[in-house]
């Protein structure tokens, strides 16, 4: 526990801090809670304005949940995905293995599971979300605990369980064809498992991409050893056997990974009388109806959306740190323009906004099923309103940036996808190059070289002395040699 919050000790040394620093308690040491602490420490490294205490239920340092499929694939060891410890700052204290059990908004106090409590001036809820299991027989016991062979993929413990359940060469079933399900399936295939993926919607990544893209993506997955079963409902899990579908087929599986959605962890907020719908309801200041209670990340429900992706959560963390440290009290979170990037080795998929924009949008589509590529770009009033880009890695990043910035798109939209802008008229050097530059460093043109040759320079050193060509970066040496060979060959008369 930080000395500055124990009144009996360090009173003299920390007297200033004690009286003026506002106490912020963060519930949740996940990616967004830890990032909030880091953002605060950057703005107030000495803890002069605020003192942050982060409590996290997991008994380990914060880590990067987004990379769990990478752990599964063997790209990372569990310790490789730890987040930087903000505890090094005077502004931040972290208590892992400590769960908050209740909030008393009237007394501004959080009760912890070790029997102690923390008083706060500002409370930040970063409790995240947990896997939601669909009501399919055999998945979970009455108390919600997964049945044998079944696991979610939300934390390192899930990763360890899955690694123990699945063996290389053996079959695994992934239930849920969203982003996490597809990433998990790819990672398991990388590890040599035989993977089946089941999605109850008509196509995979239903929320992010359109049907033609999903078809090409599914074919890509098949080639990588993942059998995709879209628009199939699971009937029940048969431990030791596999997943039975509603048409009676059984997909063999040593393990079942459930990636069929999440549920925000809102119980502690609801218990304190804070307004909760799908998540903890917040406004643009990221405050709940209680102005001293804030929520960020997957547990928060903002009208502009953003839950489920880390980038909006990190943006919220930065905005709230601006506000609560007083760095930028006017900072607002006005909603996400999330860009989804599938992290699957060998597949480059980016999507944003409306995957199926209506007729009011101008849409460009390129479909190349054979090449495994698909691009769709929808524009309204010169702004990107949606894009699906499969196998268009280079333009995807530029398009995502334009979408994120709300920047206008170029007139030539096809060029945006193919990377080949139509020639602009009136551009520098666009005119016909009557006398091309050969040596850029010394601005020597072909005509200049020819004049020097006509004046008697027959060798490269002579040419260099006469024109300086080849003496800069040397990149034109070959061209000069070729020109000389041509001229000397055409006119074998010896130089005077």
């Amino acid at each position, binding site marked *: 526990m930080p000395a500055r919050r124990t009144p009996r000790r360090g009173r003299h040394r920390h007297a200033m801090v004690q009286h003026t620093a506002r106490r912020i308690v963060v519930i949740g040491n996940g990616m967004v809670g830890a990032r909030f602490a880091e953002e605060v420490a950057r703005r107030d490294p000495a803890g002069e304005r605020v003192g942050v205490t982060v409590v996290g239920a997991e008994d380990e340092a914060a880590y990067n949940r987004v990379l769990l499929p990478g752990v599964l694939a063997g*790209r990372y060891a569990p310790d490789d995905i730890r987040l930087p410890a903000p505890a090094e700052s005077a502004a931040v204290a972290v208590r892992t293995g400590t769960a908050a059990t209740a909030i008393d908004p009237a007394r501004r106090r959080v009760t912890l599971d070790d029997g102690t409590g923390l008083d706060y001036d500002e409370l930040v809820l970063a409790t995240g979300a947990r896997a939601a299991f669909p009501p399919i027989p055999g998945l979970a016991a009455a108390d919600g605990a997964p049945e044998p062979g079944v696991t979610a993929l939300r934390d390192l413990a899930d990763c360890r369980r899955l690694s123990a359940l699945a063996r290389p060469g053996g079959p695994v079933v992934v239930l849920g064809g969203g982003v996490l399900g597809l990433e998990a399936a790819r990672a398991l295939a990388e590890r040599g498992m035989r993977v089946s993926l089941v999605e109850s919607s008509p196509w995979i990544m239903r929320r992010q991409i359109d049907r033609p893209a999903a078809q090409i993506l599914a074919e890509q997955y098949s080639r990588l050893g993942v059998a995709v079963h879209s628009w199939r409902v699971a009937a029940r899990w048969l431990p030791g056997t596999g997943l039975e579908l509603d048409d009676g087929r059984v997909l063999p599986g040593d393990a079942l990974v459930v990636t069929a959605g999440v549920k925000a962890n809102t119980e502690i907020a609801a218990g304190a009388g804070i307004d909760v719908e799908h998540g903890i309801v917040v406004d643009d200041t990221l405050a709940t109806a209680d102005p001293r209670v804030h929520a960020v990340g997957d547990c928060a429900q903002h009208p502009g959306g953003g839950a489920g992706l880390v980038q909006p959560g990190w943006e919220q963390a930065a905005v709230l740190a601006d506000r609560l440290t007083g760095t930028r009290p006017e900072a607002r979170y006005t909603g996400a323009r999330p860009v989804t990037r599938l992290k699957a080795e060998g597949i480059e998929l980016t999507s944003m906004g409306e995957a199926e924009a209506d007729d009011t949008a101008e849409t460009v589509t390129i479909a190349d099923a054979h090449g495994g590529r698909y691009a769709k770009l929808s524009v309204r009033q010169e702004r990107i309103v949606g894009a699906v880009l499969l196998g268009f*890695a280079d333009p995807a990043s530029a398009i995502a940036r334009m979408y994120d910035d709300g*920047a206008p798109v170029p007139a030539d939209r096809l060029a945006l996808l193919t990377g080949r802008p139509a020639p602009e008229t*009136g*551009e520098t050097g666009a005119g016909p190059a009557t006398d091309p530059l050969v040596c850029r460093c010394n601005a020597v043109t072909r005509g200049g070289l020819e004049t020097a040759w006509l004046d008697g320079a027959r060798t490269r050193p002579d040419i260099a002395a006469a024109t300086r060509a080849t003496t800069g*970066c040397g990149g034109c040496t070959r061209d000069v040699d070729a020109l000389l060979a041509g001229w000397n060959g055409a006119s074998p008369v010896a130089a005077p």
Partner: protein
Amino acid sequence: MSTATHCPYCALQCAMHVEAGPGGAPAARPAPFPTNRGGLCRKGWTSAELLNSPERIVRPLLRTDRSGGFAATDWDTALEHVAGRLKGLSAEHGADAVAVFGSGGLTNEKSYLLGKFARLALGTSRIDYNGRFCMSSAAAAGGRAFGLDRGLPFPLPDVASAEVVLLAGANPAETMPPMMGHLSGPRLIVVDPRHSATAEQALAGGGLHLAPRPGTDPALALGLLHAARAQHLLDEDYIAARTTGFDQAWKHAAAFWPEQTEQVTGVPAQRVREAARLLATARGAYVLTGRGSEQHAKGTDTVSAWINLALALGLPGREGSGYGCITGQGNGQGGREHGQKADQLPGYRRIDDPAARAHVAEVWGVDPDELPGPGPSAFELLDALGTASGARAMLVLGSNPAVSAPDAGRVRNRLSALDLLVVCDFVMSETAAMADVVLPVAQWAEERGTMTNLEGRVLRRRAVLAPPPGVRTDLEVIAGLAVRLGQPAERFPTDADAVLAELGRASAGGGADYAGVSPERLEAGEELFWPVADAGASTPRMFLDGFAHPDGLARFAPVGHRPAAEEPDAEFPLIATTGRLMGHYQSGAQTRRIGELAGAEPEAYVEVHPDTGVRSGVAEGDWARVVSRRGAALARVRLRADARPDTVFLPFHFGGEEAANNVTNPALDPVSRMPEFKVSAIRLERADPPQEAAAPRAGAGQRGPARPAG
């Protein structure tokens, strides 16, 4: 007459012969040398032209009223005037009322003597130099990683044998063309927001161009480290045996998986993975950084992030691979070693280190307590001029801060507020034009001395001809003032070789040890790379047996990414980034006065994406006003389809209304105190041509594209 010497401009210090050209005027031609391999760029070819320029100042100029013009005077009058004013201001306001501003263009001897002059003759702590704007971030990062910073800790020709070279924020094809001769073999990975000439060469040679959004370089470096580790490509044995601190550094990189790196930098995740694989699997690889990495409010951390990548791949301290900083200014390396930096004494010693103070004080024959402590860094020094807490007089050598400092309009206001501004120069630079006293000094080919190039190689600069009558060397000016300020004459020798010998003693035992450097060894053609501790020593390759920290281990720096000091918004929706052109050097005070160079690039321009041009209402060839929160620069529009739509580029070689630094942001790096030249939020407006454009420009149009007669 044909004398072998080195080019006056950049840190490559190409070897050249200077000899009588047609009509008897001196002319330069390239000479064979390991660095330039017989090459020379157009700046080098034309460098001798300024020696005979009609714009040369050849008599001291003095004025007592800045609204009036200068009057030519004699040296005694000028030096007496300056010394008298300095003494008066110092007596009235304390020694720190006088500041000194030096340069990475000065020889080692001048850098050394200038530092000594400030500390002893003036007793001021306020001395710094324009190298703070160039190499200080890499110096800080290199020092913290390796224990000692030498730009390239290996000879430049080493890189030619590598399979892959990553160039971060460096554009040598434009800024030091002959260096490209060493880079024609390796595949290049060029990191630059611009589609630069070097990026072009990388792509032509089967390499990569990674174009991060300006200000996101650390995220890209962290992302490459992440991608290398995720592909199991790190050199774990090297990390264990030769470094410390990897785990903490990795935690920051862990947050930059390739897709996240793409989100922040705009570089496609696939390219991040590809670049990491290319670099990590190469037989022989180098990571080289330039100003594009450094000139940020987070430049030190940015360079550290690149060094972390190099360390994680096991590159530094091994023959055939490594990390290096491509130094910019002619003596950028030597200039940062010998005591013209606010926090330094000769030999790369810290001015707050009692042992360093004792050593140098003994060489100087003074009590260590007489030496002032550390002073403010360059921009802070400039920004305080004429204020209650700042200096009231300043002496400037080899620098043109009225054009080259960030937020140059503000700096010009500060310069105007001085009681006394004294500028040593050979042409009427923008800063000289603001001065009370201008002292005409000799040029590179008119005096002797040593320079230390980008490899830490000490070079002999030779006198080819005598300076014009009435012109003195910088060493003579320093000595003349020192004596008039009451110093014994023998303390300030005017002979460069005598100064070098003293510099050798002062630097002995320091990081940059020149004790064994002598004119005789240099004249005999020995290759001297510092440290040169004694008459037999030279160190072409550093760190082969261990790094310069006490435990011999290199340090990973735990650095993350943070945004630029200023991000675009509705009012200033674009980013301006600044840099150099092939035909000009630094503030352009020299190159704008050379007919051929000025003729090719006579005026400031701004590179704009055609779509951005349409939206800003500017067309090819229009004049545009590039406006930031700090000021505006006028530049002619050049539309480039390969430019980033969110970024414009401004070369910084032009003065007055066309000075790019009128818009740049003086947000400083917390460690190196380097300003953020590379990221300014701006908007573009269509503008009328600059007023000054109506007047004839120095040299412009006097000659066509010149060709030296053979």
